[in-house]
Structures are given as structure tokens and as C-alpha cells.
């Protein structure tokens, strides 16, 4: 799951949480480095940045008592709660009399569970797109180009594994799983060299289905590999 999918999933989760807890007026999530992951429509960018800037200043000074875990500000017309969840901070703006237990359940139970679930999806995804060990064949000649070639089946396999949820959905619905194809791969040699390059299907019928990767000679030289060597190849998503 890439960062955008993660942000969308968190945003959807926050939207649903807001529906369940009408006391929440605004919410957004940012990283410990101050990057905003997701925020709702009600909080404009200027407001969010102002809050973030003030919070960063406070976080710096809070080092006097340790790492900042949470801030609650009660104003005359509402309450602001900033809570540290893993490597992120959740900002909730609620009505002044919002139920403390609800807020606590969001910050300490619901959102951490959602984040954990998303991370589990992320790990599953990584396992599914684990590198494949392929045998090197060199591509030479005028038309060698700068793309490597692998079996169509490998590309299809990577494409289908690209988004596990879409794959499950396609299996359930019986529809064809239409996803973006893999355009680039990362090649890593056992000597520790690596390169990212464009990828195409193997066009030579005789070389198909042999667990092979055809790499232009020039790239072989830079990776310090020869024909018959094994390399680890994974898609760049």
C-alpha cells in the first residue's frame, strides 16, 4: 500500500468516525515530521498549517518534560485534542462538552486499531511483491534499448498482487482485475549493486517460461553481472 492509499484509507476512517461522533468538528492527522497525511474539508490549509506551526513550537519546548504525548486545549467554545498515535499525531476539534470517553476511545482504541490494520495490509502487500530470483540473459545489438525483459506471467503476477483488496474484490465479483501494469523493476545483484529500469515482456518465444531476465549489456556491465548470474527483481509500484 503506497502513501496515497494509506492517506485515503485514514481519511475514510476519519470520515466514518466523524459520522459516528457528531461532536467532532474538525480532524486531521500529521506525522512527527510535520507532514499532513490527511485532513477534512472543514479545516482549510492555512488553519491547519497555523495549528501545526504552533504545535511544533510547543513540542520543541515540551522536551523539558519528555516527549510530547498529548495536548488538550479547552476553549470557551470548543476543545482541541492532539494525540500521539505511533509516529503520527491526530488533531480533533470537538464541542466543549464532548464526551471524554468517546475521545479517549477514538485516540486510544479505534484509530490505533485502524492504523495497525493498515500496516498489516502494507506488510501483506510487501510479502506478495517479494523479489523474484531470475537468471540473467544479456540483450545486445542495436535494438537492445534500455529496458529489461521478463516473462509475461511474472508481470501479470506482480500486477495482480499490486493491490490485494482489488484482487479479492475481483475474485468475489468474477470481474477482470483491471490494474495498472508494472512499468519499472528494481534489479539487485547478490554483489549489492542495484538499478531501477523499464521493463517489457520477453519477445523471443524460445526464451519464454525460463525464469529469465534479459538485461541490456550496458546495464549488465554497470551492475557487474554476466549471463547465467542470479539477480533479485521486484516491481516498482
Amino acid at each position, binding site marked *: 500500500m503506497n502513501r496515497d492509499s494509506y492517506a485515503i484509507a485514514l481519511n475514510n476512517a476519519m470520515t466514518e468516525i466523524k459520522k459516528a461522533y457528531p461532536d467532532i468538528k*474538525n480532524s486531521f492527522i500529521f506525522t512527527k515530521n510535520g507532514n499532513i497525511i490527511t485532513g477534512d474539508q472543514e*479545516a482549510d490549509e492555512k*488553519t491547519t498549517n*497555523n*495549528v501545526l*506551526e*504552533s*504545535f511544533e*513550537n*510547543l513540542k*520543541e*519546548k*515540551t522536551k*523539558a*518534560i*519528555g*516527549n*510530547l*504525548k*498529548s*495536548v*488538550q*486545549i*479547552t*476553549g*470557551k*467554545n*470548543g*476543545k*482541541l485534542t492532539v494525540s500521539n498515535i505511533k509516529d503520527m499525531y491526530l488533531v480533533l*476539534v470537538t464541542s*466543549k462538552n464532548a464526551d471524554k470517553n468517546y475521545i479517549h476511545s477514538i485516540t486510544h482504541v479505534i484509530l490505533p486499531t485502524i492504523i495497525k490494520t493498515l500496516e498489516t495490509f502494507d506488510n501483506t502487500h510487501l510479502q506478495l511483491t517479494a523479489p523474484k530470483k531470475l537468471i540473467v540473459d544479456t540483450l545486445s545489438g542495436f535494438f537492445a534499448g534500455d529496458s529489461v525483459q521478463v516473462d509475461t506471467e511474472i508481470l501479470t503476477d506482480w500486477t495482480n498482487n499490486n493491490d490485494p483488496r482489488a484482487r479479492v474484490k475481483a475474485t468475489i465479483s468474477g470481474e477482470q482485475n483491471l490494474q495498472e501494469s508494472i512499468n519499472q523493476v528494481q534489479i539487485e545483484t547478490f554483489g549489492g549493486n542495484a538499478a531501477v529500469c523499464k521493463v517489457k515482456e520477453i519477445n523471443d518465444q524460445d526464451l519464454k517460461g525460463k525464469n529469465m531476465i534479459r538485461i541490456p549489456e550496458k546495464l549488465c556491465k554497470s551492475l557487474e553481472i554476466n549471463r547465467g548470474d542470479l539477480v533479485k527483481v521486484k516491481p516498482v509500484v
Partner: protein
Amino acid sequence: MLVKDSKTDDTENDDENIKEDLQEKLQEIKDQEGIIGYILRGSKSASIDLKDPTKIIEYAVLSSATFDAGRDMTEALQIGEVDNIVVESEETKLLSMNVNSHRISIFMEKSFDHNNLYKNLK
């Protein structure tokens, strides 16, 4: 000839009375187990009482930063004037609040219930 405004005098006296009252309460609070110390800041003077005097400057800076952040964030989010702020780290908690023109910051262990302190001082 020196002319004194009696209204100003009354205000100053009230302010002084509130300060004395708060100081008294804070002294009692300070003796409770789990309280690390406090900072009381008025318009003209401030008093700091911490169990570890070496941290006076750091805690005073944090107290001030807390009020600044509270003001800025409530303004940005339009949730009205700050009533109180609670900042928590792994082991320590800070309660900051305004009582009339006085700013109070109380440092305590995280497990300490700050709600009772708030009610006592407000």
C-alpha cells in the same frame, strides 16, 4: 500633587487579593504527592516553586510556550478564549490555566488527577 484613581486602587487590591489566595492554594497543592511544582504569573510579578530548582528556566519557557500555543491554536480553530491546557509527556503532565489576569502552570506526575486541581483553583 499626586492624584490617585480610587477605581485603579480597588482593581489593584482585588488583583493582589486574588494573587494571595492563589498563592495560598498553590502552596497547599505543592505539598501533595505527585506534584512537581508550579508557576504563577501575574501582570507585574511571577513566582516559581519547583522541587528541582535546576529546571526553573526550562519549565518557565515551557509554561510560556504552552499559553502561546494555546492562544494561537484556539484562534486558528476559532474555539474561543483558552480556559485550560493540559500537556502530557510520557511521565509528566502540565496543567495551565487562566484565573482572572493570572496564569497558572502546575507540573505533576502523569498519573495525578488534574481535574481536581482545576476545580480547586477556578
